[in-house]
């Protein structure tokens, strides 16, 4: 009950502001961003326990301070091709309700404060990746920033 009230307040506050911070990261030379609200933390490479018979995008399980977290090869998820996961890979830990998932990315970029109104829809001509995984795209000065739809990526 109370929480709904709080949520409401929160939503009101949010809708009044038009800029949002995005955590950015790289998969090779592609540039991606996600709403920082999803991000719990960022960790360097962690040792993983592989999960036999799991889908290809499941890299393994990591022990995050006692919690067991699935590490997802984000490139495999987005492109269908496994990434070369190595010790320089980074864990972008995102929280989806009760479940915590690590997205394995190649490098972490800055947090960018971007205006929601500047976001463009993902071009339908983009065939290399499933457009469902993206909310939109920002045209930055020298590159494009693809904003992930985390819900779809995680589900």
């Amino acid at each position: 009950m109370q929480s709904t009230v709080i949520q409401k307040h929160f939503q009101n506050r949010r809708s009044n502001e038009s800029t949002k911070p995005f955590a950015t990261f790289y998969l090779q030379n592609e540039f991606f961003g996600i709403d920082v609200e999803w991000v719990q933390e960022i960790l360097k490479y962690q040792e993983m326990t592989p999960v036999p018979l799991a889908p290809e995008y499941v890299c393994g399980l990591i022990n995050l301070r006692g919690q067991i977290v699935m590490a997802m090869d984000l490139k495999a998820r987005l492109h269908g091709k496994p990434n070369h996961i190595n010790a320089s890979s980074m864990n972008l830990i995102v929280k989806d309700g009760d479940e915590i998932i690590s997205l394995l990315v190649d490098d972490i970029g800055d947090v960018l404060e971007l205006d929601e109104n500047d976001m463009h829809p993902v071009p339908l001509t983009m065939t290399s990746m499933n457009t469902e995984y993206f909310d939109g795209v920002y045209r930055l000065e020298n590159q494009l920033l693809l904003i992930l739809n985390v819900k779809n990526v995680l589900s």
Partner: protein
Amino acid sequence: MDFAAEFIQSFLEEAQESIELLDRELVHLEETPDDKTILDEIFRVFHTLKGNAGMLGFQRLEKVAHVTEEVLTEIRNGKRHIDEDLITFLLEATDLLKEFLIIIEADGSDAEGPTKLPSPLASIASEAAPSESQQPKKQAVARAETRSNAQVDQSQDEGESGKDSQHNEHTIPAKQPENISAPADKGSISGEESPALDAKRPHGEHEPVDRNAHRLKADSAIRVDVTLLDNLMNMVGELVLARNQIIQFASKEENPAYLTAAQRLNVVTSELQEGIMKTRMQPIGNVFNRFPRVVRDIAKSLNKKVTLKLDGEETELDKTIIEAIRDPLVHLIRNSIDHGIEPPDQRKALGKDPRGQVLLRAYHEGGQVIIEIIDDGAGINSEHIRQKALEKGLITQQQAQSMNDRDALQLIFQPGFSTKEQVTAISGRGVGMDVVKTDIEKIGGTVEIHSEVSHGTTITIKIPLTLAIIPALIVTSGQQRFAIPQVNLIELVCLDSEDNPGIEKLGDAEIYRLRGHLLPLIRLSKVLQLSGRQLEKAASTNIVVLSTGGWQFGLIVDQIHDTEEIVVKPLGKHLKNIDCFAGASVMGDGKVALILDVVGLSKIAKLVLDDVAEHSETEQVALTFDDNVHSLLLFRIHPDSQFAIPSSLVSRLETCSANHVQHTGKHEVIQYRDRILPLIRLETILPIESPLTLEVFSVVVFQIEDHIVGFVVAEILDIFTTDQKIDASGIEYDGVLGTCIIHGKVTQVIDVYKIISNQFPEWFIKKEVLYGLTEPEEKRILLVDDSPFIRSIERSYLESEGYSVIEAQDGQEALDLLNTHPFDIIVTDIDMPRMNGLELVRAIRNSDRYSNIPVVAVSSLAEPENIAEGKKAGMDAYLQKLSRDELIMTLKNFGQQLS
């Protein structure tokens, strides 16, 4: 009855929470009167309270809630506006409810509670519900007046005069809502005093009572969100792991202060773990207590009389397990009453109490909780079960006969089994006992049934205390660690490479004979497709024998480690649907290990047995076939006679239903993997009594080059390894190699090739002959082997190919024969007494008369080094023993060279 008291207790707890919520939300509502969600929430709370009170018979309380609800309805309909008065009214109503709760807690009834509504409440309510008879008939009074003290007095005057004083205390001036939420000195009745209140308390006397004394006893218990407990549980799990690490370091440490601290940490952690576990524990009574009602309803609908006895309600179990056990229990109890307990007149006739008894009992035993459902009903006739299982095609006639009563009873847990002829509304709706069993197995439990005809049935369920922390066996396979829940663990078997018979193969399936039982084996590394390099030719094989619900299988792993207490954590949604894993756990070294799901693995193991896959050539080479030890597939055609076939000759085992059999020409055939499989019925060839007509039978499939053929048998009994000599004397029939005694029964060993070649001679005539290219020429083969059994098999397939065969039992005898008889080819074993195969071939090569005869070695030792050695000694070919097609091909090649 105690259980009513328990209901009241939980009602009180819930109501107390509701009232706290109301206090809070009503104030919110006053602040934001337009917020519909708050109003809805308040409405819901009153509505629930009304319903619960009504159910427990607290009519007065119900009435207060009802009147309030009416008012709220009007607000929701827009007929009333929220103002201060209204909020006051609602808060007063809430306070009234509080008083009721206090009285109910003391008395277990609301009879002594305030008999009428405080006046402002009454008058507002009366507008909403004019029909309320107990309310003052002051409908005409304007709302503005309702807050006046005069009004209060008036309403009291109209009430029962003896209670006036009391009501005075309840009536809270409407202008002071703050007081209402915390009426420190007004309107309080302590539960203990209340029964005497009306009679003894002098009119108008106020007893200043400490507010705290009036707190509901229910306050001493708090409700905690389960997720909070889960989090605590997780953290304690981590603490346990950290503790384990500290203890490990401590063992290397000599500082006594450090050691003491470590020990203290150890003890406290264990206690904390225990304590947290306890917070998740609930008495099983929480589930049991709903059953008296359930039983009563079911019994009534079936016109039966049943008493339910409960025992061990205080037995504690983890909350998650309690929730999971509820539905299976309901189902089992329904079954007991529906199928078990007889109608009263029938019971009378049997000299039983017309009132049947069902005992539901729970107790702890060996770290598990045992739940028993015992009825004194008709019991289950195991014969009946067998018949039913036969009709449903769940078992074969032979299985039905050989099955003991206890095993037969467990058949009711098979999918597709329901014994009740009449489908009733209570049970037998197709949701069978198999569902119950699966549900119980899901929480790591087992279920068993025992029954005595006309005395009753006992169903025993064993479940673990908790799912959160479990003891598990740690194993490795493919260099990865896995945990196996101990509850499924039966025993560990370690096989040395010398152990005989060790692991046997039937087609693709691996089988181990564990004390006379066939244990299907699965290799963990294979099931999980682990790429890690396998330990080659390990000195020993580790088999973990696992059981789920009465059926066992063996899991082959690379290494077995200790058992550990592990904290079970669920796998996320991406990994949930991998059958083989039940969860994961963080191990002592901080790494994650997967927990194997034994039920999931068992499905794979079942496949091993059900669908004995085709065995490829490479696997055929791997067949272990010691010279003197042979593995026989035992089967029956007629219940009285037992037969055997060397299991290495068998390609597959299949089950077939009689209505799939078709006739083409002189043969019966079935469609099989897109091919036509001709069937041979041995009883038409051998003098065997005709078998019973079977709905479902087994087919032993053989492959002769690219032909397939199946023998129809009634029942596959076993795979049996023996070093018995096969007695070939007294063989009267073509098609029988000899006899031996297995399981105390005379067993005829079938000459497979003889029978097949008699039925399908065209398969054995060489193609060249068929096309008239060459004349059939009888080649003479000298067959040397010390095992008469092997000789008889090899002879049979050599003869079926048109060779003439003379046997010798060792190298020496072979040499003697060579001196007196001409031979075209020699087929010899290696390992033989007196003179072995290598010595024989050297002697042949060194002789002047027959040094050019092709010699083919046929041995169970066919490793590359053996082959090299054989070739070096002079062998022309070196083959795996009993690989028929290979031998025939090789001989054919030599035959062509010779001619």
